[in-house]
């Protein structure tokens, strides 16, 4: 089973930042159909801040990295997504403690704790048409990363026919059906980035060695 260090988490979050930046206007578009047209810019701003913070003062353990990233999201995103995604990462980080390296099973458990944190903070269950619809099946599939990616994408897609019961889409009542939930869409991006990071590590021959990305060069520093 692969071992994950701070560098792995950083690569994940950098990949997530890229994905979110690339898809920002799609996320905002989704949010304008059933929300307030800010989800893309919120996520881009938050993840750009995460990347900057981690580049500036990189924690040396995966738990610390997740906690710093979570705190950064809370301090920069705002809206519903800020506290929720911030809690996802912080709760996962807390579950990992200060261990310098963790295996995939520990990481999966930590992320499940993170999603529990999201669900308990936001009070949303699967089927409420929120990010939880993508996150919960994804972390359940971990540590099988490709399965997690697929579960997240399917979970997100499954929000389309739903009537929202949480968040501002819920104000629309029946008019919320027929649209993809923007938070579920961004969750699928985050899980996809995680799977990419894992795949890059695997390609490079296992452990936490860097992938093809620029960040990979620093993989051995830790």
């Amino acid at each position, binding site marked *: 089973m692969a071992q994950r260090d701070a560098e792995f988490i950083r690569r994940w979050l950098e990949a997530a930042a890229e994905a979110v930046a690339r898809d920002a206007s799609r996320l905002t578009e989704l949010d304008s159909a*059933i929300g*307030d047209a*800010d989800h893309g*810019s919120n996520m881009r701003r938050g993840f750009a801040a995460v990347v900057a913070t981690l580049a500036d003062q990189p924690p040396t353990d995966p738990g610390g990295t997740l906690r710093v990233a979570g705190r950064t999201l809370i*301090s920069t*995103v705002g809206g519903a997504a800020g*506290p929720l995604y911030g809690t996802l990462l912080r709760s996962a980080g807390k579950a990992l403690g200060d261990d310098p390296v963790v295996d995939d099973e520990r990481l999966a458990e930590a992320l499940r704790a993170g999603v529990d944190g999201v669900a308990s*903070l936001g009070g949303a269950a699967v089927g409420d048409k929120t990010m939880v619809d993508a996150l919960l099946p994804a972390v359940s599939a971990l540590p099988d990363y490709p399965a997690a990616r697929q579960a997240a994408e399917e979970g997100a897609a499954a929000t389309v026919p739903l009537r929202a019961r949480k968040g*501002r889409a819920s104000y629309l009542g029946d008019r919320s059906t027929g649209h993809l939930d923007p938070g579920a869409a961004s969750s699928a991006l985050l899980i996809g980035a995680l799977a990419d990071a894992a795949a890059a590590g695997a390609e490079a021959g296992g452990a936490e060695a860097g992938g093809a990305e620029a960040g990979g060069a620093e993989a051995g520093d830790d």
Partner: protein
Amino acid sequence: MRMLINEPERVVGDALRGMAAAHPELLVDEEHRLIVRRDAPVPGKVGLVSGGGSGHEPLHGGFVGPGMLDAACPGEVFTSPVPDQMTRAAAAVDGGAGVLFVVKNYTGDVLNFDMAAELAEDDGVEVARVLVQDDVAVTDSLYTAGRRGTGGTLFVEKLAGAAAEAGAPLARVAAVARQASEASRSFGVALSSPTTPAKGGPTFDLPAGELELGIGIHGEPGRERRPVMTSAEIADFTVDALLADRMPTGPVLLLVNGMGATPLLELYGFNAEVRRVLAERRVEVARTLVGNYVTSLDMAGCSVTLCQVDEELLRLWDAPVSTPGLRWGR
């Protein structure tokens, strides 16, 4: 482009610089995104803090000053501010009597203010919170995030602000705010979508000849789309929705609010129709405010808020207030 901006990312920062330049009587902290009463903290006075996404001006920043808010925390456009802002605001305005957070009921605002309250209490500041949830367009609130906070926020901030200014303790200021919140009901109608900087265009498409009933203040589509109605028909529909939800048993404060792009000329004409319906339904209007107060950027449309008042609330409403957006008395 209908927007007078530099870059979408700079809108809120630029606005704060411009506010600082226009209002030397306020302390505007662009870096930490705070608008604070210049004489804060006022010793012994309860500090009143609110905030929310930007784009609803004059709410909240324009309501900072003697008799109303001690501080406002502006978020990005239509995005709740972050907890750091509210914690810092609480520290800046706590005069030893504690701080009241006035929070519009949106998932983002509630989560961020709650996190901030925890942090502020860790710092030794006593914090109470009141939720504003006045929008009757949100039905089935058991299956939703609950009712939205809209126009009623103005009443809560003014009435609680007057109570705080008069020296009431935290529990009393919070009770006034809660009473004002519970007594407030709003309903909004959009004649156009707002243009958000992030999207660079309208949030929703409203074909000519249609309007959205039951909108919030964030450019979300409403509950229902209908062919255009006259001002009289909109007043009938709106006031009926308000009275069906809560029939006042005494005099009310009336806010006929523009969403940002509806001319005052039209708002006053609409006020005439609202007053006609209220008179038909025998609701007594104690005070009226007509204007763009709780807006949604450049959205055309209006909302109506009723807030039932007793003698004390009416006295608090009439008490002096001195802010950029609301000013009367001494």
